[in-house]
């Protein structure tokens, strides 16, 4: 029997929403593994259809300095939306998230001021660009993530897309002050 006190639990979630075949699950797995190697507690979950390609996919990573209490957050700190199908699957959770970066071609315009729409899918391999954007919010895991990507079979191309994503991510951070809070809280996770 444990009698814990009311300590605040600091858990942050990064999600990718997309379509089967875009590599959403793989991207979140790499992100989780890289964060794990940097000493964080992580939980990586996903929701996908029975079909191998084409269905709606939402996958996310919960990051914390302590063991994860609850890997089922009601909303996310940061969402990268790669396809409308994924957004539709978890509409409530995604729309109540702190910051959403959505593909401007494949995701229908979302009229909310915390949504930023940019070219993601057309900038390279979609999941790698997404990972790059996320990394701009947690720069401390960039090297671990690059190591994980290097193990993939088409590492070179993937790394190129990843770097493109990192660039897009930093550009967005420079332009949109709303993203700063999110980046700050995520960065704090690995800083100390």
């Amino acid at each position, binding site marked *: 029997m444990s009698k814990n006190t009311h300590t605040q639990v600091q858990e942050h979630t990064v999600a990718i929403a997309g379509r089967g075949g875009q590599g959403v699950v793989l991207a979140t797995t790499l992100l989780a593994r890289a964060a794990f190697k940097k000493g964080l507690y992580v939980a990586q979950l*996903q*929701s996908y259809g029975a079909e191998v390609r084409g269905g709606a996919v939402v996958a996310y990573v919960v990051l914390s300095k302590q063991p994860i209490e609850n*890997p089922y957050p*009601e909303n996310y700190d940061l969402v990268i939306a790669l396809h409308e199908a994924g957004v539709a699957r978890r509409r409530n959770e995604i729309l109540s998230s702190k910051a959403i970066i959505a593909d401007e071609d494949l995701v229908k315009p979302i009229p909310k001021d915390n949504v930023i729409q940019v070219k993601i899918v057309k900038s390279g391999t979609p999941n790698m660009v997404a990972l790059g954007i996320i990394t701009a919010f947690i720069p401390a895991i960039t090297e671990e993530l690059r190591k994980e990507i290097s193990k993939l079979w088409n590492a070179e191309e993937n790394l190129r897309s990843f770097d493109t994503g990192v660039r897009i991510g930093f550009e967005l951070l420079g332009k949109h002050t709303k993203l700063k809070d999110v980046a700050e809280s995520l960065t704090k996770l690995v800083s100390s």
Partner: protein
Amino acid sequence: MRVEFLSGNEAVAKAALDSGLKFYAGYPITPSSEVMHYLARELPKNGGMFIQSEDELAAINMVVGAALAGVKSMTATSGPGFSLMQEGLGYAVMVEAPIVVVNVMRAGPGTGQATKAAQGDVMQARWGRHGDQVVVVLAPSSPQEAYDLTVKAFEIAWGLRVPVVVLSDEFVGHGREVVEMPDKVKEPEPGWGSEDYSKPPFGSDDPRKPPPLPPLGEGYDLLITGSTHDEWGYRDVHSFETHFKLVKRLKEKVLGNIEKVFMYEYFGDDEADILIVAYGSMSRPARTAVRRLRATGFSAGLLKLKTLWPMNYDVLRSYVKDARVVIVPELNLGQVVYDVRIVAGNGTVVVPINKVGGGVPIYACEIVEKAQKVWGEVLEEALQP
């Protein structure tokens, strides 16, 4: 201590290997297949046997055969496959074969939603077989517990010669988390370490002590049958006494050891006004809900059940009796809530939260809102003249 980033399904497979698993038979089914994938790779390298069976009926019966031969054996499946295994599970109960069956629950009935988490197999795991029987059902809430409870499953199965079901779900099985594992697990021993092969293999004077299981091929001339049998295995399909004695012993063997079998955790205030009873994956948002309720001034607690069967109603009652409101969140239309209703007195309001399908969890905020709403109603009723 080993620390790895594993899915719940991988954690189950690793725990089984660490517990001395040497035989796995299984049939592919979502969302349990990763258990099989892992063991297909590892068992042949570790002196074990792996076979992809023609169906789940074959899988469970092969596993029973291997267990009777004295080898640690396991199978894993999901909903429809688990239904097919029920007959074999009942047989395993009758011949007292120490097997471990992992069921990674998905949304049913029928084919349902193969890739979506659910907790709808609780009653099937408990009562899915014909006749009177008890199996042990454990429900992990995370990859960490998937590891810990699978180790425990082998310990109980071999300690009591009883089938143990590890009732995981898609969230736990496919979710990946950090898992801490000991460097070495003590291999589970038959009869918790004391076996006398001169004693009858199917009878025991002490109902708490399982009979010994001599391995096949050593000259014990074992007579094993799924029909009603006496303590030496001779079939008796007529007498009341033999049958009654046998089924009672099979039940008492497990219930008599309930302190070794029944596992739970409590988190929160002593004698909490609002109690949440949860298990498996849904015990985790429940814990967050309890923390939030307490932070806003409520007296709240979480009773997390790790063992779903046999249920220790005394333990359950001891927590439920002090609560005014008991919330039971489940990814089904209400199954464990019946246990809570059995022990709840008139002064306790039992409220289920049910949600299933689409891979949608019950969120902590939903539990909090429900608790606050019901608490408000209870207060209002109490204040009425």
